[in-house]
């Protein structure tokens, strides 16, 4: 009897506090599995954000540092410069990374910090109760955009992968999702590649993962998967936006 799948050793036994069916949990697994696959768990330091993933420090079975809202890339920069041979990653939501933390992520990318950022884009501020995020879709209703995000007032959602891909220090940028087993497999490959490129010291790496927030979208977890596939992906195309290992070949 062979085990086909079991919980990753890189996750602690703590029960996760995420809402039922929230795909934050799936993304955690992929990161954890990658740390095991690449055999870097013991030399990894993760940086947790402020957002629904704030308790990520309780879930990953490696050293963890809880950052202030938006500042995870700066914290990771501090860690990596002290410990250049360690594997350092940040795990950040769209409010954290694309709103308050815009400057920090842009500059970590510019400096080509050898870190990996897992960017969980769920088009909303999950933790604080469903307010508008910079990634909220035009027309999408949130508690602070009760009539739907208006283009006239707030513009269109920001596409961070595309934006960061304009920066030379970024070595690898891909956008994926986890709404189907196939997507999950692809997301896993992206995350693995990002960590590999980090360990090769080639520069900043980020995987943006489109994720659901059934609670604040007001949907069942399964409905949320469909909404993501049908409505979010067109606004946030899945693609590799930068890969300097390709150029080199």
């Amino acid at each position, binding site marked *: 009897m062979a085990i086909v799948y079991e919980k990753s050793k890189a996750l602690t036994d703590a029960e996760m*506090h*995420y*809402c039922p069916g929230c795909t934050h949990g799936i993304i955690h697994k992929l990161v954890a599995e990658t740390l095991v696959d690449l055999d870097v768990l013991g030399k990894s330091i993760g940086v947790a954000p402020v957002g629904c993933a704030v308790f990520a420090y309780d879930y990953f079975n490696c050293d963890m540092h809880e950052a202030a809202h938006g500042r995870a890339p700066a914290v990771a920069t501090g860690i990596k410069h002290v410990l250049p041979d360690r594997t350092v990653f940040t795990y950040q939501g769209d409010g954290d990374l694309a709103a308050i933390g815009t400057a920090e992520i842009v500059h970590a990318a510019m400096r080509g910090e050898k870190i990996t950022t897992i960017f969980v884009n769920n088009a909303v501020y999950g*933790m604080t109760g469903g307010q508008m995020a910079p990634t909220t879709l035009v027309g999408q209703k949130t508690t602070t955009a009760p009539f739907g995000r208006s283009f006239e007032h707030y513009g269109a959602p920001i596409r961070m992968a595309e934006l960061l891909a304009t920066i030379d220090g970024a070595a690898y940028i891909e956008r994926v999702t986890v709404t189907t087993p196939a997507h999950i497999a692809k997301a896993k490959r992206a995350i693995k590649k990002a960590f590999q490129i980090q360990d090769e010291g080639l520069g900043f790496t980020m995987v943006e993962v489109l994720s659901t927030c059934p*609670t604040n979208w007001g949907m069942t977890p399964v409905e949320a998967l469909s909404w993501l596939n049908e409505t979010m992906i067109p606004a946030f195309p899945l693609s590799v936006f930068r890969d300097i290992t390709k150029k080199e070949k």
Partner: protein
Amino acid sequence: MAYNEILISGFGGQGVMAIGLTLAEAGMSEGMNVSWLPSYGPEMRGGTANCGVVIADSEIISPIVLEPSELIAMNLPSLDKFEPHVKKGGTIFVNESIIQRKVQRGDVRAIYVPSMEIASGIGNMRVANMAMLGAFIKATQLLKYDTIIAMLTQLFTGSKAHLVGLNEEALERGAACVD
């Protein structure tokens, strides 16, 4: 002179906050001073929550209910946590549908309400909290039954008007648990 400090506690989703709000609104519309103060547990989703309501005909000093005169315990952790703090001579309303044990203290009055059975009997699980409220009103005589009905009638209009009846029935059946 009324100075009631009421604590309502249970799981998120059991209508704990709504019971409190209804009490506060009713108290206010009967001309009393009221306050309502929610408290959410450390768990950010699910978990236990409670609210304190003060209803008084004098000035309300503190809205924080630490030693309630009445406790409405919707689940076991709530009864466990707050039973010791109820004032001597106070009343504890126990949601006996999911609380297996009895009140242990001898110096308080205990009232047992099978709220979920009542609700499922009426055919709408969402009125379970109204059964608790009915018992409360009957037992304390603090508020008029009519005030609640009037509030319900204001709240549910149009397509929702039929809910008034359901709620009323829950109130009554809850009240019937008080002997």
